[in-house]
């Protein structure tokens, strides 16, 4: 008998989505899809607003990683106010923004690992759903839960000190930043009462990496084979190839590590990246234009970043990076569940970067803003926790935004997430006579690895596609209208 399984809502991800899995008469998976059922529309309603409003307005896309949108928009506007394409800010402007961003990476990665993912690892993918959640973790592993909460708090306090608020701040303005770090703030981050100080955060981040490695050593089959498939990988890298989450050039590699996008200036992203619309999801499907829809899709996020970069410019994270790379003999890592390993190495890197920045005197003195000759158009890219985030704005002669294009990290991971869903559905459900909750959660685990933020990722230009179907009492369709 044909069967259609719907998992709705997908839980422990940011935003709302649903999954449909179609099973044919022989028990084989004929089709599985991740549908994004939310609708936003920011690209449309920022039109006509003054350009300097964008970093504050557009970040309202999301309450999870507003900092990423805030900074990507500000970077695009740096270009518009003539402050250069990412490296033209004053030292204070750039470093304060970096501190804000690494605070955001730190808190977001901690949130994802401890709150959203650890229940699957600690209780098992098919564990009792009544305890397979953060409350269950808090009861059985209270130290770990507290660690997650405090790491997130530390990152949020960094955001507050740089952006003005923990959520939806106003710190980054076109051409720079609107405040310095105070001595009091600096002291509290460096020497704060235990555990809220940077040394403890680095130590806990290192512990998290060790925890994951230990789990991996005991669950190799699951971590290495679950939702594993080859793909291209894309991210920003520093000009010298280092991991840089705030700024760089755009690089992509294929599943074997060959460069297929050669460190290009992201101002020209439209020459390299295109988006496909499919009628069953509000989320678009980006791909590298040169390689087409079928071969050009790619992954973004921690896994992709550690596949594209050559090294990590902080010592502890670099040491972990070397071990991580050695596991795949230096080749790109295509194992979805290794996303967690990569994410925790980035967590450690973010903590080290925060320490380095906190000791930089430029944060507390120096010019905040710089401007030059005004431009009509600007693109800002940043490596958000979930991957590469694109903001693109064009303004008119009256300083109003007339065009905005956003390609959100999760959108970049749309095809990979669908691939992961398909792989897992085939692996765990094919030929099964009964579909269990554990099997359904396995599909969610695959999606969760990408830490998708579904609320950010949906936006539409023009009309929202809607279908209205009129049926009679015998379920015959008598009329169908689309708009």
């Amino acid at each position, binding site marked *: 008998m044909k069967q259609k399984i719907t998992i709705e809502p997908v839980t422990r991800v940011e935003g709302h989505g649903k999954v449909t899995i179609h099973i044919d008469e022989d028990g084989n998976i004929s089709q599985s899809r991740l549908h994004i059922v939310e609708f936003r529309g920011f690209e449309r309603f920022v039109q006509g607003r*003054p350009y300097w409003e964008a970093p504050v*307005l557009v970040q309202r896309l999301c309450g999870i990683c507003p900092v990423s949108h805030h900074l990507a928009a500000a970077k695009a506007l740096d270009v518009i106010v003539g402050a250069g394409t990412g490296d033209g800010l004053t030292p204070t402007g750039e470093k304060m923004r970096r501190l804000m961003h690494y605070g955001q990476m730190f808190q977001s990665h901690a949130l994802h690992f401890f709150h959203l993912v650890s229940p699957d690892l600690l209780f098992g993918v098919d564990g009792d759903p009544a305890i397979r959640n953060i409350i269950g973790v808090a009861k059985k592993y209270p130290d770990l839960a507290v660690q997650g909460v405090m790491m997130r708090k530390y990152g949020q306090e960094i955001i507050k000190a740089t952006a003005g608020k923990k959520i939806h701040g106003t710190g980054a303005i076109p051409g720079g930043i609107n405040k310095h770090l105070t001595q009091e703030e600096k002291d509290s981050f460096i020497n704060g009462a235990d555990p809220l100080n940077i040394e403890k955060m680095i130590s806990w981040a290192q512990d998290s990496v060790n925890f994951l490695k230990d789990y991996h050593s005991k669950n190799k089959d699951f971590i290495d084979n679950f939702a594993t498939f080859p793909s291209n990988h894309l991210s920003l890298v520093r000009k010298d190839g280092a991991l840089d989450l705030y700024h760089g050039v755009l690089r992509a590699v294929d599943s074997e590590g060959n460069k297929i996008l050669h460190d290009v200036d992201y101002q020209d992203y439209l020459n390299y990246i295109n988006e496909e619309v499919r009628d069953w999801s509000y989320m678009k499907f980006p791909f590298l234009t040169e390689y087409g829809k079928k071969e050009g899709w790619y992954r973004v996020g921690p896994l992709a970043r550690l596949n594209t970069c050559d090294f990590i410019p902080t010592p502890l994270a670099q040491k972990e990076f070397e071990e991580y790379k050695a596991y795949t003999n230096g080749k790109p890592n295509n194992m979805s569940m290794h996303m967690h390993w990569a994410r925790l190495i980035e967590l450690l890197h973010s903590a080290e970067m925060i320490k380095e920045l906190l000791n930089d005197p430029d944060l507390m003195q120096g010019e905040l803003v710089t401007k030059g000759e005004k431009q009509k158009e600007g693109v800002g890219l940043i490596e958000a926790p979930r991957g590469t985030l694109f903001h693109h704005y064009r303004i008119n002669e009256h*300083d109003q935004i007339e065009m905005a294009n956003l390609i959100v990290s999760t959108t970049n991971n749309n095809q990979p997430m669908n691939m992961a869903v398909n792989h897992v559905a085939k692996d765990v459900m094919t030929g099964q006579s009964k579909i269990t909750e554990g099997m359904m959660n396995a599909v969610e685990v695959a999606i969760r690895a990408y830490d998708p933020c579904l609320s950010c990722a949906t936006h539409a230009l023009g009309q929202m596609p809607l279908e209205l179907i009129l049926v009679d009492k015998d379920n015959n369709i008598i009329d169908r209208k689309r708009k």
Partner: protein
Amino acid sequence: MSEQIKFTIDGKACTTEKGTNLVKAAKENGVYIPILCHLEGIKPAGSCRICNVKINGRFMTACTTDVADGMVIENITPEIQELRKIIVETLFVSGNHFCPACEKSGNCELQALGYRYQMMVPRFPYEFEEKEVDANSNKFYIDRNRCVLCKRCVRSVKSKDGRSIFAVKGRGHKAIINIDHELANQLSDEEAMEVMNTCPVGSILKKERGYVDPIGRRKYDTQPIGSEIETINV
């Protein structure tokens, strides 16, 4: 020496010079009477009604009233506070005020009054009226979605030869504030900044300045509106 007169506000004995405007006289005596359309130094209009008080038992607008000897004024009573809250709510529902992304947030008098009168959700339905913005001036971005038609700009902003830069166009609920772009473009940056500060809400924005005041250092971040007057020891 000018003549001193005596009056009371909510039972508090006050003194001022004869002929002093009530809002100003209250301020001298450490009493805050809220204002929105009024601005010290310009002719009062009494249009927003937020400064309503009871004088000798009758409602009157404080900004249009000079204090007389022996006046008995009620300022903070449940009835008057509720009336003021209603006025704030009507202003919110008749415009399109999105405080979260507004660059005047934290410096906005209407928002500050909303907090002072503990407005949670307006009791009236939102009108969501479509309002046009005017970005054609070199100096200002005029967002009529946020305009409360207080006319402070109309009354106070003049060119060097005394001509009005802002004016009201239309009548009744169709009234909007218009700007003379040519005259506005002649203002210096400092003068343009003064104009922005004259506007009690985020309707007149000086271009390319947004969000330079960090959160925590904006006017009403650390103290509620009126508290600077109420904390004066008289």
